[in-house]
């Protein structure tokens, strides 16, 4: 039986299950901590760093999604420094690829776009890099557009952990990192893809989308996948 422990989040005393992450505990207590790579039911990897928080006595910021709660923890989730860091992270995400919201299938249904609005990002202070990246339309049902990818790896994890096919991977390092299908095949030539669409539904942006949708038309439903993952105890 998981035992209850007490932590303090933004001064408020909160009971949490031992073994839960700080992010889960904070969300359960009704707190808002921004995140993009976290998805309920999947493992946490701390890829996007948006959920960074301050923990008293720790000399660096910690991602809430990969930090387990410990009894007596004192956590700060909102202050000027954290808000500045989170805005900077979002701006760097925008600068790293070609996010043209106006012509995106996920316009108005995009987690990156919504978070930029919520965190008050009205411009990007860093020079855009305008990388030349691939668009893969070889799959019968789905499209992959790397211009919109933020490397959150939700697709990688949902495919490996829930569907069990492990079609997606990330290759290379730093700004050169790219999402690839299997050992760098076209998606349409994948041997393992079951065309289940879980990756598409999990993708927070328009990087993975169903074919046949125009601008603003692609809405996604990750919640049923999270429920399924929880039922199967993939990552509780």
């Amino acid at each position, binding site marked *: 039986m998981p035992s209850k422990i007490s932590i303090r989040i933004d001064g408020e005393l909160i009971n949490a299950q031992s073994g839960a992450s700080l992010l889960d505990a904070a969300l359960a207590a009704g707190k808002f901590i921004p995140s993009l790579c976290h998805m309920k039911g999947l493992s946490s990897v701390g890829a996007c760093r948006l959920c960074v928080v301050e923990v008293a006595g720790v000399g660096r910021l910690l991602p809430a999604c990969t930090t387990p709660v410990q009894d007596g923890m004192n956590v700060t989730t909102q202050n000027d420094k954290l808000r500045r860091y989170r805005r900077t992270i979002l701006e760097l995400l*925008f600068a790293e690829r*070609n*996010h*043209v*919201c*106006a*012509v*995106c299938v996920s*316009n*108005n249904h*995009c987690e990156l*776009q*919504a978070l*930029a*609005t*919520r965190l*008050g990002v*009205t*411009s*990007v*202070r860093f*020079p*855009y890099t*305008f*990388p*030349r990246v691939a668009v893969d339309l070889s799959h019968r049902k789905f499209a992959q557009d790397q211009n919109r990818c933020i490397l959150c790896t939700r697709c990688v994890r949902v495919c490996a952990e829930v569907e069990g096919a492990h079609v997606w991977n990330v290759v290379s390092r730093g700004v050169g990192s790219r999402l690839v299908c299997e050992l760098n095949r076209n998606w349409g030539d994948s041997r393992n893809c079951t065309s289940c669409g879980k990756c598409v539904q999990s993708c927070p942006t328009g990087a993975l989308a169903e074919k046949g949708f125009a601008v603003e038309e692609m809405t996604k439903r990750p919640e049923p996948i999270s429920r399924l993952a929880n039922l199967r105890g993939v990552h509780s």
Partner: protein
Amino acid sequence: MSKAKVATVWLDGCSGCHMSLLDIDEVLIDVVQKADIVYGPLVDAQEFPEMVDVTLVEGAVSSQDDLRLIQKIRSRSKLLVSLGDCAVTSNVPSMRNNIPTKVLLERAYVQGADVNHRPPTDGVPTLLRHAVPVHEVVKVDIHVPGCPPKADAIAFVVTELLSGRKPELAGKVKFG
């Protein structure tokens, strides 16, 4: 009290932001009571005037002409507002940026054309290598994203500015 001088300018964009500006409807009446529109596609001035109070910029900086004009505008404007995603992010005009301009023009005017197989040279400005947001070449005071920004947001910005306040836009506007 003398009226404020407001200018608008249309760089590499579709004029949708100017359409949205016209969509502020009756607020326009308040605006013209407090300000004179001294330059832009909506009025007939040929030369950008000196000492403009507020300039709203639509569009990305894509050509040598855009660059020269925006530098002149910056030096003659007290407040510069990037209006819309093209000015703020370079948006759709930037989708050409990972294609070299020579290849781009060849594709459009040679491979894509039935007659006159050469890129135009007379009366058209030279393209910059990249279409860039306005704030990458001159200082911008206020960013109003949106494609186009909602009329309400533009009305809010203009009204606040004409009342001598800096509009706080966080949470009120979005990209796209």
